[in-house]
């Protein structure tokens, strides 16, 4: 087997819950050796969340088991001086330390970057608390859902005229992904200059960088983008439509007048597709409600996968809305081998989501 890209890099990982562990899971996927530290006195609480079918026991949390793949797990009590000494031994032979506690925790343990750099001058350390290591809110308590809440994203999300919405989970893995990118930039710098450094990642800032367009709209025009459901600011149609079956849906998005023509032909050119009120993108956007009703009447006669086939053959973007059970059976993901079968003690053999990219030389 070829070496993975980060072969030889060692990460000493104190991260708990989800965002930090996702960062180090990605580094582990890329070939780094990740040594995850938990303590018997204080286990990673993520083990106790998301535990189906049984809420009991430390090994049934799907979130934990997914986010801690490919890692070595050790227990170490960092409240004990002997525990700290062992930690420092690990830092001496490591390249990267990662932590996502509140900023006070590592300080209280005396395990700050400045202290650890004395032991290992080339050390890179990633700190990724919710609000960053500085500023008036640095010690505020946040979890992934809170990070999503303060990003601004919920207030532009929701049914038209309805309340703000959120996913509740997306901020953690997204901030984790940003953490892995941050480590890579610092590694690149170290490779060139020999210098390690400390990275201060505010999860709130990381997620706010996804808000480019809406922030610009306010900065330029003092305008708040409205909650517009699944609609697009100016392209139409753009939505989720009910199909044949119980709670089955399909997404349809049309990005140009050419695609609209292709769509009309694919649905059999019924009279309504020739109406003037749908003739160009602007008129379709203005008459989106009426258009949605007519499209919904068409989609309700077909199976969601059938619609995907019909429309994609015509070059129109459409997809079935899959439940997580359906996702496991999706032919595209199966073809690419995205889910990998892993056997763990206690939970047994199950398909786990893999890495979303294929490397030609270092698979």
């Amino acid at each position, binding site marked *: 087997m070829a070496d993975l890209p980060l072969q030889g890099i060692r990460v000493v990982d104190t991260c708990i819950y989800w965002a930090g562990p996702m960062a180090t899971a990605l580094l582990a996927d890329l070939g780094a050796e990740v040594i995850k530290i938990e303590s018997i006195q204080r286990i990673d609480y993520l083990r106790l969340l998301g535990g189906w079918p049984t809420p009991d026991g430390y090994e049934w949390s799907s979130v934990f088991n997914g986010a801690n793949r490919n890692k070595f797990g050790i227990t170490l009590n960092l409240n004990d001086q002997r525990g700290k000494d062992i930690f420092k031994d690990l830092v001496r032979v490591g390249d990267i330390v990662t932590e996502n506690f509140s900023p006070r925790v590592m300080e209280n343990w005396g395990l700050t970057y400045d202290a650890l750099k004395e032991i290992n001058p080339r050390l890179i350390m990633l700190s990724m608390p919710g609000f960053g290591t500085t500023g008036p809110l640095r010690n505020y308590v946040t979890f992934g*859902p809170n990070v999503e809440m303060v990003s601004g994203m919920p*207030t532009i999300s929701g049914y038209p005229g309805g309340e703000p919405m959120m996913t509740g989970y997306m901020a953690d*893995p997204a901030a984790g992904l940003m953490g892995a990118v941050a480590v890579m930039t610092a590694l690149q*710098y170290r490779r060139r200059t020999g210098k390690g450094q400390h990275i201060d990642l505010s999860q709130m800032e990381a997620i*706010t960088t996804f808000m480019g367009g809406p922030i610009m*709209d306010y900065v330029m025009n003092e305008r*708040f*983008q409205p909650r517009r459901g699944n609609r697009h600011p100016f392209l139409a149609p753009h939505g989720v439509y009910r199909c044949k079956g119980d709670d089955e849906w399909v997404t349809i998005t049309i990005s140009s007048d050419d695609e609209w023509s292709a769509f009309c032909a694919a649905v059999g050119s019924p009279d309504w597709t020739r109406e003037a009120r749908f003739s160009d993108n602007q008129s379709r956007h203005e008459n989106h409600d009426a258009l949605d009703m007519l499209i919904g009447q068409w989609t309700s006669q077909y199976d969601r996968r059938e619609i995907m086939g019909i429309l994609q053959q015509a070059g129109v973007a459409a997809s079935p809305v899959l439940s997580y059970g359906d996702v496991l059976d999706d032919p595209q993901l199966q073809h690419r081998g995205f889910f990998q079968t892993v056997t763990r003690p206690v939970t047994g053999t199950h*398909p*786990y989501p893999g890495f979303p990219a294929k490397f030609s030389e270092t698979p």
Partner: protein
Amino acid sequence: MSERPLSGTRVLDLSNQISGPYCTKMLADFGAEVIKIERPGIGDPARMTGPFRDDNPDPEGGGLFLYLNTNKKSITLDLESTAGINIVKELIPQVDAVIENFSPRVMSGLGLDYATLKKLNPGLVMTSISPFGQTGPYRDYSATDLTIWGLSGILYELGEADREPLKMGANVSEYVAGLYGCLVTLAALYHRDETGTGQHIDLSSLEAFHTMQPSMTLVFSYAGFIRKRSGIHFPWGILPCEDGYIGFYLPTQSHWELLCTLLEMPELRDKPEYETPMMREERRDEITALIVSWLRGKRMEAVFHAAQELRLPLTIVPNVRQVLELEQHKERGFFAEIDHPVAGRLTYAGAPFKLAETPWQAGRAPLLGEHNEEIYCQRLSRTNDDLSRMAEQGVI
């Protein structure tokens, strides 16, 4: 300009819209030289996507484009002409990485497949971002952000039970694909520096976005459980107060108890029907109503700080203006003011993380073809006469 983490790395950017440009924005903002190839006369279609100041369309004033293309160099080049393709091939030996997000058949159709480019530069890293990947039955299918949400499993469980599934308002799948693009490119560059070997990376936006909720397929596999849409999934929620919205999260029993303290209703703690998380989830409508009535007439900042005083993970849910005004962002200098010759001085979301030794530096997006002379004349030894002729022929 001080040394930056990716100084010295050169990237040829053939990407458009959001995913690829966000990837190369990250690389450029951290110091890589990114040469963005744009279609002559038109450029990246994102230039005309807006938002525009006063809604006046201007290819140099599109807010999304300005944001996603900071610190890059723009050259115009017609990839449908032989001369254009030859110029790409001349640039390949001078760069470390190529980023593209065309449909899978396009690069090979142009004669720019990885095998060809690798002959020109054996250490080349090429990252291809596409909706479904370069292989498989969907590879030639079209997709937008919403298409990806549909297939990911995530859309199915968001929204109200009796209404259509609902995506978030931002194009999250495209940003996530862009970030993964950045991660894999940097990892492959690291590997190349260690071993001398370049490689091609085939990144699927669908797979990338699926990893934003990687546990629910496992939950299905462990227990056959599928979560149905139900509006708010307790124990988190967003609720209105006097001047905005408040969001709460109650991961543990002690957080529930802290909420009872905040609401000044300690008796809730002892109510048998609210004893366990499962019971509270079943009665989330009742509990939500209690919180809503307590929030009535209260201001978001005051509630935020009072809750945090108790160490309760409750936060404000700011709109975009309130995000821009957050004291925490000001104190940390998150937003950057950037000048642009056409768009003027605007506020941009800034560094996604702070590197102690090598600070992030703000820079502006390029004008269409702004760096033609620099790249074509200085790097490829064309003369100004050559440039005029190429412009006449529509090559640049």
